[in-house]
C-alpha cells in the first residue's frame, strides 16, 4: 500500500515527535556538512612546504660592488652598497609578482611583464607598479650578509656593518 502522508491522521503527540526528529536530523546534517567543509578546508591548507628557506645568504660585505646592484636571481634579491652600509630589496615586482631585471646600461630596474621601472634603490620611476620594491631585513651571519625574503623593513633602512 502506498502511504499518502499528507492525508495520514496524526495525533498531536506524533506530530510534535515528527517535528523534533526532523529538526534533530537536519541539525545533524548541518553539523556534518559544516564539519566536512571545515575539514576539507584544513586539508587543502598545506602544513609543510618544500620551498626555499626565506633566509638567504648573499655575499661577504667586502665583496659587494659599489655603484652597481648585485642580482641574486635564484633568491629574487638585489643587494647594494649604501653610504655606511648595505641594503637588500626584493626583485619581485610590486605590480603582479614578475621578477624584475637590473639593466646596467640604463641604470634602471625593468619589469618584463608590464613595463614597470624602478631606480637602483627600488623607487618607482614609471609603469603600473603601485609601490617601491620593498627592502628586506639584512643580518650578518658568519661574516656573510643574509637577507630574509619575508621580512620587510622601512624604505630608508640601511644595514650598517
Amino acid at each position, binding site marked *: 500500500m502506498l502511504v499518502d502522508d499528507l492525508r495520514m491522521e496524526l495525533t498531536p503527540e506524533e506530530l510534535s515527535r515528527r517535528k523534533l526528529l526532523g529538526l534533530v536530523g537536519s541539525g545533524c546534517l548541518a553539523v556534518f556538512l559544516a564539519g566536512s567543509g571545515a575539514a576539507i578546508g584544513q586539508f*587543502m*591548507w*598545506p602544513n609543510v*612546504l*618544500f*620551498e626555499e628557506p626565506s633566509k638567504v645568504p648573499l655575499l661577504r660585505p667586502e665583496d659587494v660592488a659599489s655603484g652597481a646592484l648585485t642580482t641574486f636571481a635564484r633568491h629574487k634579491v638585489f643587494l647594494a652598497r649604501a653610504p655606511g652600509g648595505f641594503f637588500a630589496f626584493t626583485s619581485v615586482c610590486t*605590480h*603582479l*609578482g*614578475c621578477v624584475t631585471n637590473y639593466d646596467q646600461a640604463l641604470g634602471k630596474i625593468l619589469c618584463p*611583464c608590464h613595463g614597470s621601472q624602478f631606480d637602483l634603490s627600488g623607487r618607482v620611476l614609471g609603469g603600473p607598479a603601485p609601490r617601491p620594491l620593498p627592502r628586506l631585513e639584512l643580518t650578518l651571519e658568519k661574516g656573510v650578509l643574509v637577507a630574509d625574503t619575508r621580512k620587510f623593513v622601512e624604505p630608508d633602512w640601511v644595514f650598517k656593518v
Partner: protein
Amino acid sequence: MFGTLLNRLIENRVFRSIVRHGFPDSNRNRSLASFTNFFLHLQPVKVRLKAIEFTRTFYLGGLSLACLLILSITGVLLMFYYHPSVPRAYDDMKDLEFVVSQGVFLRNMHRWAAHLMVLLVSLHMIRVFYAGAYRPPREFNWVIGVVLLLFTVLLSYTGYLLPWDQLAYWAVTVGTNMARAVPAIGEEMRFLMLGGHTVNENALIRFYVLHCVALPAALFLGIAIHLWRVRKDGGVYVEPGEGGEVRG
C-alpha cells in the same frame, strides 16, 4: 531480401529489450524515440521552426557543447602521457608535440577547441542578452549560464599552467597575484590556490586536479541543469506573439 534481413535483426527479444518502440514513423513513436533514449531525452519532442533557424541562435550553445566534447575526448587522451610534476610536465608536453603519434594533433585540437569554446560561450551569452532570452521564466537559467561561463574561464585558466613553460608560469604568477588584491583574504586565497607562496609543484598538481576532475565534473552537472531548464521552459526563446509553426 534487405527487408527480411532488417526484420530478422530487429524482430527479436534482444533488440526489443534495448529499443522498446517501433520505427519513428508516427508521432507517437517519434515521441517515444526521444523520451526513451538517454541521449535524446534532454531534447524537446517538438520544436518551432523559427527556433531552429540558424540566425536565431547561430547554434552558439550547441557549438560550445561540441567544443566541450572535443576537449573531453582529447583531454582524456592527453592525460595518458602527461605527468603533472615539475621535472616531467614540460618534457611531456614537448614529447606530445614531437614524439607521441598524433600527439601534436591532439594537443592542438585541445588548445584550439579551448580557445574557441571561451569565444563561443561569450558569444552565446551576448546572443542570449540581445534576444532577451533571459526574461522570465528563464532568469535563473541566465544565472546558471553565468556560472558555466565562470567554469569555462577557470578551466581555461587552470589548463594554462599545465604546459609548465615560461608563459604558463608567469601567467599564473600574475593571475594569482590578482587574487591577492582581494581585500582581507587575498593573501590566504593565493596561498590556497597555489598550495604555497610561489608557483611550484603544489600549484601544478592543484591546477591539474581542478582542470581534469573537479571543474569538468561541475561543468557537466551545470550543463545538464542548463539544458534541462531550457527544455522545460519551452526550448529556444521565441518572443511572445512571434508565433511560428510547430514541427515534430
